[in-house]
């Protein structure tokens, strides 16, 4: 509950900032263009990807090093394991570096007066249309890395099953809040 209030607080602040910028200063979201999300989201994904890869790979390295130091693992075996480990690490890091960029390249969103369209997918591609008439509620959330860069994730909830919650990560926080406001069902948009 407290968490939700916290989020709402952030959200209100973002809202206030966009309001302070003045309505004319902000271009309309509905511009008929397929926008990419903020480029910095690639950085976020890379930071997270690198941390995960390093965290996972460091454990076997430490174990083997201890084994070698104690004498349980013979030198040649240790060296070959080290080689394989380096190879795996290098390829994982390469993927962690390249994949976010590819994903970013293939992610586009289009805002319509009465809906949102998201296309995404590098190999398996999806185009999904979410009409405002089917939006139940929306969330805007921020992870710790996202917060430092001023990015946010918009999640749209529908009454559906497979598409019960659809997330769009890596939006600039201000845009995420405005989009969330834009997508909320009629009585919420009246306030705008």
């Amino acid at each position, binding site marked *: 509950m407290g968490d939700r209030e916290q989020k709402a607080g952030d959200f209100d602040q973002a809202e206030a900032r966009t309001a302070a910028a003045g309505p004319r200063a902000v271009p309309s979201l509905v511009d008929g263009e397929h926008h990419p999300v903020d480029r910095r989201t690639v950085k976020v994904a890379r930071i997270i990807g690198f941390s995960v890869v390093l965290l996972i790979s460091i454990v076997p390295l430490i174990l083997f090093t201890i084994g070698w130091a104690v004498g349980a693992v013979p030198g040649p075996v240790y060296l070959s394991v080290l080689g394989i480990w380096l190879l795996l690490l290098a390829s994982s890091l390469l993927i962690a570096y390249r994949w976010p960029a590819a994903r970013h390249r293939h992610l586009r969103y289009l805002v319509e007066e009465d809906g949102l369209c998201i296309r995404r997918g590098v190999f398996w591609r999806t185009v999904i249309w979410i009409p405002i008439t089917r939006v139940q509620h929306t969330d805007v959330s921020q992870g710790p890395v996202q917060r430092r860069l001023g990015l946010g994730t918009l999640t749209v909830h529908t009454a559906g*099953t497979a598409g019960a919650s659809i997330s769009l990560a890596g939006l600039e926080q201000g845009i995420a809040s405005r989009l969330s406001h834009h997508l909320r069902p009629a009585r919420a948009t009246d306030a705008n």
Partner: protein
Amino acid sequence: MPTEVRRLHRWSAPFIAAGTIRVLMLPIIGAVLASGGVLLSRLDLLSVLFVVPACVYAFITQRVYTYRFTEHELVVRDGLLTRNVRHVSYERIHNVALVRNPIHRMLGVATARVETAAGGKPEALLRVISLEAAEELRRYTLGEERTAASTDSAETTGEATPTLQIPDRELVRLGLISNRGFLVVATFLGAASQGQWWDQDWFTEQDWSGIFAGVQARAPGWVGWLFDSQTVVSKVFLGLAVLLLLLVVIRVLSMAWYLVRYRGFTLHQQGEDLRADYGLWPAVSSVIPAHRIQLVTISASLLHRWFRRASIDVETAGSTDSDSGLGAASGTASTRQWLAPIIEIERAHELVRKVLPEVALDGLEWKPIEARAARRIVNRIAIAVTPITLGIAALFTLAPIPVSGWQALWLPPVVLTTAWLAARQWVRRTGYSLSECAIYFRSGWIGRQVTAVRFVNMQTVSMNQSPFDHRKRMASVAVDTAGAGSTGHRIHIPFLDVAVAEGILSRLYEETRRTEFRW
């Protein structure tokens, strides 16, 4: 006008206890098995561990569980230490299912489950209340107009002709069509292999050859020949006879199962909703809110079609499987339920139209999927067949049998020709149709299914492309609905040309954009 506080029926405690023990059954069985059956002899321990807590819980629940009706909502209070007050608005309630097994009926009570669109667990589980209380519950929760409608229909129930009534001979036919019997046999075998309760020693100690000899002596000559002679023909005959016997047994079990579960299946129109009553054990009376039906599917297997029958099922948002309290408790229940387990093909469309007037399944203009899809299906199978062929070839070569590995090369042409023929049939019979207010998708060759979703019930629409789709300029279109189960036929149109798929997508978006979703 708020009513006074209502309590559960005075016979509630045993039902609550039984329900709890039923949920605990799995851990109990687990504990007994883990102890190697020792626990069975320690009934005192078992009861202290499971039965006593269940009973205490039941008595407390019976005391503290209360509910009352206010103007707009049902207010349920529960809990001794952790108190819980739940407000359920009548508007959100869309099903009040009553479950009654023979014991319920003996005592004139029912378990009532109040369900909303939220899905998963029922919003309130009243275990148990009297029939009058159940009637009151339905009257309050199902709203003013529906109250009027339901009292109306209650007065005229005697004369009103039900929308659908399934006679026993249809259920027998259904048993013949379906494979339920396998499930009964499997359950029995599973139980038999677990427990010690059926005496294997007795089985092995029987003088089986003596019994056979006795049978032979009494049976006519040709039976004796079957058992005596060692020719291949007699063995084949014997095998076939056993198989036939097994099939007959399974079919008979199927019929029995359907007669018990669906005996007297009747569908009544009740206001705007439908009410299905069926079953000897348990006897189920469930309201299917017609306007909360999200999706309707008509299925016909090969056997169905031989009998000129089909089955109709619907998915309602949030409602849980109406005939099992357990499923609802675990929150994994399917939202699919029968509108008609069996119905004449000619009447199926009529029934669907009666329930969902906008959905007209006859006279649809079906549009095909891409004909070149057949080639892709065969390609997929070819990819699967190659390693299998190589594997079999290797097996034949290595195994000490007088069959050459080259024999395995017969496999690909045979499989692929069959696949090609089947795929072409499948592609020819798979298609979609768009009407004024609904989208339809049909698929299947041997077993066929048609699913319809009204535009108002669509949530999000999407177009998907696998890497292969992308290479062949194809795509699939999927429609998401509320309360979709993980299994079952739904709107997912594969193998469309990209341009066609995009056309369908924008049309569907247009339809969802300008219609409101109603619960």
